[in-house]
């Protein structure tokens, strides 16, 4: 690993100030992705700003929802009693990701900031527009089995690897940020971006901004499921995942939220499907129609064509599983 300077920071303001002073400084929290990327030479910041001393670990709930600090560990959020009782979709998604050891290190903010696991992004001998802009995309013509089927561009077909973010996108979460200008918020679904012509940017976070937390609004959903399909039954990134939250009264779906993982450069919210499901009976016919609608417009690149069929089946299955849960 190329050496770097290291600084511990105690306040959010000091953190954003320190970052502004250095062109390539990066914040480090859990480090599970960043340290790996540095070992592989994918990234080489001249300075790491350790933000673990910031008071951003709290999980606080009230009638309006729950505020989760950016430094709350993935394992702490997954096991939190309020999250398990009122936002079980988030707990399910978190526990579907990584391993017990990694969840004990990884933070909520870090999970949001993790980079794609595209093998060409990791392989510094290959072209990659995300790692090195204007070098080309090796994945389009290469081994693209893990890659995106929605929202791709000629520059990049990588997927965002997070499970947690898929649940947060479905749950209408808001990201809380701080910069030198002050505090502000953005919708979670606006946080990650599609690759377009600038795939080097995974998110809409601007230089000098720091995530302080994520807020999930209180909701009336009573049925949840997180379905993750992967190459082995645990500790692997999703081929396709589906987060479902439903408000079911009798057999009628009053309100639905759906998002997919493993299919796009960002958590892929299915708003058209949500609108379709509202007011419909929770029947196999409804779910089949919803599943077809979910994958409309999907396009594969050869090795990942199976994701279109798999995505349809996964949405159908996730809806059924959600409804069957007590």
């Amino acid at each position: 690993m190329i050496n770097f300077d290291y600084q511990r920071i105690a306040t959010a303001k000091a953190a954003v100030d320190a970052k502004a002073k250095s062109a390539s400084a990066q914040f480090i929290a859990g480090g599970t992705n960043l340290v790996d990327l540095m070992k592989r030479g994918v990234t080489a910041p001249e300075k790491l700003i350790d933000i673990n001393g910031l008071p951003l670990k709290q999980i606080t709930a009230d009638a309006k929802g729950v505020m989760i600090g950016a430094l709350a560990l993935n394992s702490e959020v997954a096991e939190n009693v309020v999250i398990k009782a009122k936002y079980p979709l988030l707990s399910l998604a978190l526990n579907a990701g990584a391993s017990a050891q990694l969840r004990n290190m990884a933070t909520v903010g870090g999970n949001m900031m993790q980079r794609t696991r595209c093998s060409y992004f990791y392989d510094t001998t290959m072209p990659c527009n995300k790692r090195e802009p204007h070098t080309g995309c090796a994945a389009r013509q290469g081994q693209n089995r893990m890659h995106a089927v929605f929202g791709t561009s000629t520059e990049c077909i990588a997927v965002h690897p997070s499970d947690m973010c898929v649940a947060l996108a479905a749950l209408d979460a808001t990201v809380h940020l701080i910069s030198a200008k002050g505090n502000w918020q953005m919708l979670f679904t606006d946080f990650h971006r599609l690759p377009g012509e600038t795939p080097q940017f995974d998110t809409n976070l601007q230089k000098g901004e720091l995530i302080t937390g994520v807020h999930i609004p209180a909701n009336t959903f009573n049925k949840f499921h997180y379905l993750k399909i992967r190459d082995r039954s645990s500790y692997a990134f999703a081929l396709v995942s589906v987060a479902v939250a439903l408000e079911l009264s009798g057999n009628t779906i009053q309100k639905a939220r759906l998002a997919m993982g493993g299919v796009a450069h960002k958590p892929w919210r299915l708003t058209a499907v949500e609108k379709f499901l509202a007011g419909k009976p929770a029947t196999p016919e409804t779910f089949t129609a919803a599943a077809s609608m979910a994958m409309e417009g999907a396009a594969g690149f050869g090795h990942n064509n199976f994701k279109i069929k798999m995505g349809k089946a996964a949405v159908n299955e996730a809806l059924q599983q959600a409804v069957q849960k007590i």
Partner: protein
Amino acid sequence: MPNQDQYNSRRDFLKKSTALAALTVVSPVLAKAAEHDEEIASMFEQFPLKLEVNGTAHSLSVEPRVTLLDLLREQLHLMGTKKGCDHGQCGACTVHVNGKRINSCLSLAVMNEGKKITTIEGLANGDKLHPMQEAFIKHDGFQCGYCTPGQIMSAVCCVKEGHANSADEVREYMSGNICRCGAYPNIIDAIMEVKKGGQSL
């Protein structure tokens, strides 16, 4: 099991033979360059680091790029914690930090200031093995043994966290520890026995 002397001599032999092999293929120019690199490395800022490992307080000095795994093995000579993949994918480097299991290969040592680390060397109570170590021996929870320290450290937490209520739950919560020999069924038996034994870990 070889005794400590045999172990040391094997390690010394490996070191010496590696050094000899290096001398035969490395040109004097490259050797000189390597020396130069050492000098440059020594110029990097070292950070003071205080932490407690297996109950012993240490006051150390590290470059920020040193991982907790490398610190344990290379500075503190605690070789029980293994380097498998070095990328957080195999779990061989699992240690406890403030009681929580983590991958020490992805943790920068300097970020562990003031923390309490437990490695496989710190698990036994003198000559008395930890119940999880006993159970791994009883159930033959290993073949080559390379993943075993990580498996045992992870297994202790798996039970403590309350994630060992069924074989399926153990499989899920032990998925961060890979065993290429495939000793999984025996590992699960060992963990389930410790869980059922109800000992305080």
